[in-house]
């Protein structure tokens, strides 16, 4: 409690300087104050770097089988050991970062774009448009998300790309609802009324005024959703509905090696840790962003 009070005091002191610093700098500053968020950002950046430089640093190819060296324990030759095909797990984890981040980022991007569009339309126009869109969201949210993802994949056929699409689809209503509720409140602001009063076109109001003012919770939600998406991709991979062999997707790696849990635990341990760390990174970062971007949370 004492800490909170101190924070409040800080906030009260600041306003004099605030006029000079642009809001994004202010946000950045308070983000850096949150040590956990910085750790999260660090983890995320670490995995992004790994994903980019994977081909340069990976000692072996991700599909390079050496059956003579199968299921070797971690050693200086194979840092994370080898799997049941004699593939180097370290290299596969590095390449796997590409897949997980790719799926995480683009599936969320997809659902953000579609969800925001639908949410804005529903929130701004209201009435039957809102009713239809909102009911569709309700129906989608009524399904457990992984079940819906499985359904989508089984319609499209199992592959990494279709898993990405499935994850994007199941997350649309989350963003749609978020944006819609934000639009509903922004719509009532005086500057919107003013814009309307001077005869501005709907499309311009939506894009120039409502969208920028509704987007900050979306950014927070998106960061957190990437974490969820990575787990969902791993789950689909584990079920054989996502990445197809020999793609080094972490969930698929877990599924492939689960039979060897007693003989070769490292085949499960490292992909598991990789999934855990990336998800943790995005979650911490997301929480930090929320503190910064959502003023209500500060109280």
């Amino acid at each position, binding site marked *: 409690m004492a800490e909170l009070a101190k924070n409040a005091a800080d906030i009260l002191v600041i306003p004099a300087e605030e006029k000079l610093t642009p809001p994004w700098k202010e946000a950045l500053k308070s983000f850096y104050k949150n040590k*956990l968020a910085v750790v999260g950002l660090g983890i995320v950046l670490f995995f992004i770097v790994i994903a980019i430089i994977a081909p340069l640093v990976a000692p072996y190819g991700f599909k390079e089988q050496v059956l003579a060296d199968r299921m070797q324990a971690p050693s200086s030759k194979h840092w994370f050991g080898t799997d049941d*095909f004699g593939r180097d797990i370290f290299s596969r984890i590095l390449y796997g970062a590409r897949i997980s981040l790719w799926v995480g980022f683009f599936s969320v991007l997809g659902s953000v774009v579609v969800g925001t569009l639908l949410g804005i339309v529903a929130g701004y126009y209201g009435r039957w448009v809102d009713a239809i869109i909102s009911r569709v969201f309700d129906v989608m949210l009524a399904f457990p998300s992984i079940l819906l993802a499985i359904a989508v994949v089984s319609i499209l056929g199992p592959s990494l790309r279709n898993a990405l699409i499935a994850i994007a689809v199941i997350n649309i209503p989350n963003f749609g609802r978020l944006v819609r509720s934000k639009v509903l409140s922004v719509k009532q602001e005086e500057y919107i009324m003013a814009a309307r009063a001077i005869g501005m076109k709907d499309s311009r109001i939506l894009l120039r005024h409502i969208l920028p003012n509704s987007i900050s919770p979306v950014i927070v939600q998106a960061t957190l959703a990437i974490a969820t998406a990575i787990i969902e991709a791993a*789950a689909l991979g584990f079920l054989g509905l996502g990445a197809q062999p020999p793609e080094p997707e972490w969930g698929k790696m877990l599924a492939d090696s689960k039979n060897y849990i007693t003989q070769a635990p*490292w085949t*499960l*341990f490292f992909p598991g840790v990789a999934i855990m760390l990336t998800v943790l990174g995005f979650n911490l970062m997301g929480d930090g962003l929320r503190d910064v971007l959502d003023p209500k949370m500060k109280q």
Partner: protein
Amino acid sequence: MINKKALGGKKTLMSKKSIKLLLIFLLALSMFLAGCGGKTTKETGGKKEPATSGGSAKDTLVYGRGGDSTSLDPITTTEGEAFKVTENIFETLLEYGEQDTTLHPGLAKEWKVSDDGLTYTFKLQEGVKFHDGTDFNADAVVFNFDRWMNGNEDKFPYYTMFGGYKADEGHVIKEVKAVDPYTVEFVLKRPQAPFLKNLAMSPFGIASPTAVKKFGDDFRKNPVGTGPFKFVEWKQNDTITLEKNPDYWQKGLPKLNKVVFRVIPENTARLNALANGEIDVMDGLNNSDEATVKGNDKLQVIERPSMNVGYLGLTTTRKPFDNKLVRQAINHAVNKKDIIKAFYGGKALAAKNPMPPSIEGYNDSIKDYDYDLEKAKALLKEAGYEKGFEIDLWAMPVARPYMPEAQKVAEVIQADLAKINVKAKIQSVDWATYLQKATKGEFDMFMLGWTGDNGDPDNFLYTLLDKDSIGSNNYSQYSNDELHDVLIAAQTETEQAKRNELYKKAQEIIHDDAPWVPLVHSTPLLAAAKDVADYLPHPTGSEALTKVYFK
């Protein structure tokens, strides 16, 4: 996957960073311990619970297996999981030896063959009753054969063993007649060398005519035979329960009171169930788990005598496998030795022919396509596929005796093929659909295999690769008239030495045409609880549990 409540829950913790840090630390610690824990349980696992089973005399055997039966009317299928059960419910006129394919009396106690090889006379066991109480007699035998020969490939696929159906020219049986209540006579149109061996095959179990008429198409779910066990209940994809037939004609048998066939798809999960005492016998033991079973003093490993072939089929009616050069190229590109070392624990023979060497007529002078990527590439170039191509590679979803880990083997083949620019996408589908699609020739390239039914080369070469068998077991849709003539000549020839020569010739033709990549002849492994006695696995892949008992 992650639930929103968990995320929401974190909000309240946000300010309390120390709690969060602690949680993270605990999570990391538990992951670490879980990782290390694996090794320690491996060492102690065997001795963990030695006192779970035992106690009063056990007479219910639970048999764990990878897939459910597709039917319990054995003539309606060619699939091994069905026979594992029906062997116990139905009996055939002749039976094989306990662990070989020599012929012994079954429902027929003696038989006579005419000099021209065209008339077979069988004396039947007297006083045998079907499970529904009706009598087993010559009329029942005639009824069964009439039923089968009036069917077609969809209904009774295995009946092609007799050259086709009633209207077909190739059909060898001219007539089946009851001479007296316990004598049956078969008259053939042409001699068929493996005729007696065929009769002993599991699909030709004699069913109760009354029950067949009563149940019609549902007989496949309500089997009634003369065997040591009676059918009780079938829960699809879960269990099939059989109970002792108290009126079994062989006195003192069976020794078990009840048999339950339980489906546990994952080989490792099945092994866990065995170690926990949930099941008593399991088939489809991974070779990599053999050491685990041997290290557990509650369990035993049982080896099935080998009589099978696991192969990679190339559908010869589909591009690019309609081109012989491409098929040969694939043969050069697959590294069988590595596959055997990795996924058969070294306990399999690399296959070069479509039949195993334990069977008479095996052509050992054939030189296998060696693993040589340059040759493979050269052949592809010659065929006009220099840049390679993309295909689907289908792998069985279930463990088969000839291939306990098909998906893994498929991944190795995928990597092999990538080296000659052939991009293979691994696909799978449930077992029943898999076989259906394979029958129709809908796969480019597929993993499959065959366990011999009667120990005759005919049962491999004719059954799997003759043009007559397209639509039943010739999944690669391979049709070759020259081969057909040789195989039919071998069927008709009754002198064994001449037959062997013909089969050797047939293997040369097949080798050159390469409709398959023959992969392995495996020694399938089973595991059982130590107290299971007299479990004698049969090379055909299914055996009646008549004499099994608990020590």
